[in-house]
């Protein structure tokens, strides 16, 4: 979504002004500085570390080796990468399924109601993410809110074992990232022209047909942007697997964290980070391609 706007504005300035003036470079300077300091430099350090050796305390020794990448080929890590992708994909899919109707309702609501609904969406961000995750422990634990609620209705029901299971991790992931799915879809829904839907109806399309040929294509840039915003951070998440999953099944985020905290192996952690980053780049290119194609004709 943002890619399209940036693309058009660059194209626009390109047609009116063949060369960037000093002023536009000055305007760009903070962004460039930000990118260099917080994106390019750390990534470069990561890349250098990933080819280095380590000493007994885990700090980096500057001698070239490919061992860290060789270790990633170990099936253990392939399995963990694969599982992390699966977790992220499932939670992204759930976010789309849950988030789309929510975003659609908000986008189609009356102006005053819409503002209030959007505000409600933001309210959880007023407290720390960790505190909200701890709240889920209180809800999901064996003597917790959910089990006592079920018990109140069905007194014979045995307590559910939810906390410290993969289901709990999934609940935590969907909960944490749902707003990042709803917001971009909402952006697309809001711009959706109601008369197009009416026209489709007038031309004899049923609700399913309207959805698949009109609503979905016009909101797909929002879905693609939301997918990117959910999928990418969900792969690397480690706090939720520790807190709600009981740290039983490691995801790639946990493995990387361990290299720095327990295993004293910074170079290996860096190599995992580089591979991880490469995966992100691939996912981004694929999704961004879809997003621009979907939004292209507009």
């Amino acid at each position, binding site marked *: 979504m943002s890619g399209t706007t940036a693309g058009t504005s660059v194209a626009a300035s390109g047609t009116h002004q063949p060369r960037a003036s000093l002023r536009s470079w000055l305007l760009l300077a903070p962004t460039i500085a930000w990118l260099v300091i917080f994106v390019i430099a750390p990534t470069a350090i990561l890349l250098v570390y990933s080819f280095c050796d*380590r000493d*007994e*305390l*885990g*700090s980096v020794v500057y001698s070239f080796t490919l061992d860290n990448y060789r270790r990633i080929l170990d099936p*253990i890590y392939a*399995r*963990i990468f694969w*599982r992390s992708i699966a977790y992220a994909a499932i939670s992204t899919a759930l976010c789309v399924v849950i988030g789309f109707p929510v975003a659609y309702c908000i986008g189609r609501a009356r102006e005053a109601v819409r503002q209030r609904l959007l505000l409600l969406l933001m309210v959880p961000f007023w407290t720390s993410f960790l505190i909200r995750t701890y709240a889920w*422990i209180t809800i999901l*634990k*064996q*003597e*917790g809110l959910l089990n006592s609620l079920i018990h109140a209705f069905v007194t014979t029901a045995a307590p559910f*074992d939810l*906390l*410290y299971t993969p289901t709990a991790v999934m609940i935590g992931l969907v909960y944490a990232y749902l707003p990042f799915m709803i917001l971009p879809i909402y952006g697309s829904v809001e711009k959706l022209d109601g008369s197009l839907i009416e026209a489709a109806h007038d031309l004899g399309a049923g609700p399913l047909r309207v959805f698949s040929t009109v609503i979905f294509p016009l909101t797909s840039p929002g879905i693609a942007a939301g997918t990117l915003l959910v999928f990418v951070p969900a792969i690397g998440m480690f706090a939720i697997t*520790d807190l709600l999953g*009981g*740290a*039983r*099944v*490691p995801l790639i985020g946990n*493995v990387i964290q*361990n*290299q*720095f*905290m*327990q*295993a*004293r*192996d*910074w170079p*290996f952690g860096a190599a995992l980070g580089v591979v991880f980053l490469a995966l992100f780049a691939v996912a981004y290119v694929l999704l961004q391609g879809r997003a621009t194609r979907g939004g292209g004709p507009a």
Partner: protein
Amino acid sequence: MSAFPRWSLWLALLVVAFSARAADELNLFGWSEYVPQPVLDGFTKETGIRVNFETYASNEEMLSKLLAGGRHYDLIQPSDYAAEVLIRRKLIAPLDRAKLPNLKNIDPAFRHRPHDPEGRFTVPYMSGTVGIVVNTDKVKDPIVGYRDIFQPKFKDRIVVLNDNREIVSWALDTLGLPVNDVTRENLAKARPVIAQWIQLIKVFDSDSPKTALLNGDVDLGIVWSGEAALLWNEDHKFRYILPAEGAHQFVDVLAIPANAEHPDAAHAFINYILRPEVSVLISKAFPYTNPNLAARNLLTPVQLANPASYPPADGKKLEVFHDIGRAAAEIDRLMTDLKSSK
């Protein structure tokens, strides 16, 4: 020329101001949830020295930040094995014992531990063990060691520390192997034992293993003694047992890094903390074993009777961890493999 003296006067003033300010602070780098705020406040109130407190969650985190050298810490709080490697690498300065008269309060048994045999570099802060907690309302079987916990009937009722070195050491203990011999051969022997255990464990948590026990999600645990002591304070149904096969005893210490900028403030802080009436505040908030005998005299009989804080010395094997260097990565690989293949 006439401007020069004035300019240099300003510079001199600035230098004086900065050095005066610098003398009045202490950069403390300690464990999170281990130094009570009233202790820091009391020190500042009495000495006027401002304490900049930064925290870490593991010895490895502390080591890496210390070695990165971004900031000069004046006082650190490593565990014994981390202090050992820092001393070996000459990263800790010897203490000036003339500035630490309150050192006399420390139990001599804690002053000559293997990490610092002559007590030249470190001062014990708190000590503890890693042991078994049993919810005796739910578990009626006698539990004396690791073997009794890791039984199929307790599947999904166990919490353990999310600390790979600890878990490996329990397996080595069970096999009768020395816990500091983390060789490939010994890890291969420990592997099937741990693989079986991992199937039974429900939660791995180092930060607050007591939570799962308090919430009733599990009934058995292998946890830090301080956590077990808090559980006992909450409800006496939580019993603490030192494992029959052997238990890890750790001592967390205070030490001054070799590149500290305020060693005098650091000494003043150590001496302050060694006072019985200050040390007892630490014991109240974090009921580990207090090596300060004068402070122990100020504890209530109830606090002293806490079996997790002061476990009865009945001939159990207590073990000291030594630094294992690069083997930490071997342990991590083993545990990652076993955890992800379940």
